[in-house]
């Protein structure tokens, strides 16, 4: 549980408005050209560092690994900072409480669809999965829609979306988002149809409960920008190490693993690769920012797209720490069905891509 919360990439905006639009807005406008200039200089700078400063030979294993790391590490961190800033700004308009209120009135498949979509942008942290689960269920959000939200929120978050966009292009980002939402939607629909309410731990429905109120957030664009900046600092400070670790693993694979090696294990022809990727991915816990650099290398080394995406979904959507947390509200049978249904959905998505692409 501690691991889950440490690497938890939750938005943490600050509530009190400070300063006006021109304090943070002006600062941001000034920073923009600097950011673009740095970004454009990254590639030549990384090559210069690896091949000139360190004197490594281009094409050598160590040289390629170092150049990869020197280019990818600042690139991903810079993209991450911009993405998180934009997302944090949007999220000052959203909250789990508001999402809950929107979902409380919906029943049937529309509720599942809405829950899956709201899961993309609603601020969510797996460390508060239990109070959130109880808050949803007790105000009358159907169990199925609650599960749709719980699957979608960590798996298809905005950080994953924009990082995929920045690194692989909009097609893959869109594919990941649409199929992730589909997995959340269908899983929640199935879990709702199974009528497993009696497999909730009894205290979920009996514990004294006060419905949390949805706050209104700060007034004014300047205040929201300030919150977004604060949140960006908090999040980047929390995840940068995981991102660097992910890229370091990626750089090693990039330099030392032959390009076609993974094709045998993770290519299209290996039919068992998709379920295996999911089996390996489920116990692992990482946020999207940490896993994407690894996915990047898997793809470059011959892994099939469906296999790589299934791996990423399994790592972000299901995890051992979250399972332990959810066990507090779900009896073993429901927990097992939940894991099984979601894992099966991810495997299907993997096969679908491997067949179609």
């Amino acid at each position, binding site marked *: *549980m*501690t691991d*889950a*919360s*440490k690497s*938890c990439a*939750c*938005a*943490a*905006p*600050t*509530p*009190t408005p*400070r300063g006006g639009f021109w304090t943070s807005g002006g600062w941001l406008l000034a920073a923009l050209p600097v950011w673009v200039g740095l970004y454009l200089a990254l590639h030549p700078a990384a090559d210069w560092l690896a091949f000139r400063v360190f004197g490594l030979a281009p094409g050598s294993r160590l040289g390629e690994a170092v150049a990869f790391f020197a280019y990818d590490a600042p690139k991903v961190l810079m993209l991450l900072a911009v993405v998180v800033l934009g997302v944090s700004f949007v999220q000052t308009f959203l*909250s*789990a*409480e508001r999402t*809950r209120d929107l979902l409380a009135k919906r029943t049937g498949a529309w509720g599942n669809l809405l829950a899956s979509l709201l899961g993309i942008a609603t*601020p969510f*942290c797996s*460390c*508060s999965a*239990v*109070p*959130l689960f*109880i*808050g949803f269920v007790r105000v009358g959000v159907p169990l199925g829609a609650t599960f749709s939200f719980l699957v979608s929120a960590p798996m298809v978050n905005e950080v994953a979306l924009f990082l995929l966009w920045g690194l692989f292009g909009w097609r893959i980002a869109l594919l990941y988002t649409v199929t992730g939402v589909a997995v959340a939607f269908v899983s929640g629909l199935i879990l709702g149809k199974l009528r497993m309410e009696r497999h909730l731990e009894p*205290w979920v429905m009996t*514990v*004294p*409960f*006060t*419905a*949390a*109120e949805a*706050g209104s957030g700060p007034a004014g664009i300047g205040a929201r920008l300030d919150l977004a900046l*604060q*949140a960006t600092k*908090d999040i980047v400070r*929390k995840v940068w190490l995981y991102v660097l670790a992910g890229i370091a693993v990626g750089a090693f694979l990039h330099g030392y693993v032959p390009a076609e090696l993974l094709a045998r294990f993770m290519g299209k022809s290996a039919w068992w690769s998709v379920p295996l990727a999911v089996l390996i991915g489920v116990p692992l816990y990482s946020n999207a920012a940490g896993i994407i650099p690894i996915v990047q290398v898997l793809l470059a080394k011959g892994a099939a797209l469906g296999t790589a995406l299934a791996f990423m979904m399994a790592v972000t959507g299901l995890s051992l720490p979250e399972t332990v947390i959810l066990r*507090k509200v779900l009896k073993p049978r429901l927990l097992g069905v939940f894991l099984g249904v979601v894992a099966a959905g991810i495997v299907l998505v993997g096969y679908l891509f491997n067949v179609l692409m």
Partner: protein
Amino acid sequence: MKIEVLGSGCAKCKLLAERAEEAAKGLGVDFSLVKVTEYPDIVARGVMSTPGLVVDGVVKSQGHVPTVAAIRDLLR
């Protein structure tokens, strides 16, 4: 003044507790700070996203860690 920090013990809850203590000391008021870590207690106080800050029974913030200055305003 009774300050409660709600959360199951993740990094953000510890950070909130530290900031709340600093803010309360800065104000120079009498206060007690309690960490509420059990889920039933968190749910009963009407908090759905942790970490939550409750002052004298009133939910002041949830789902994020305010700055020390912001917490000082919430405590006043």
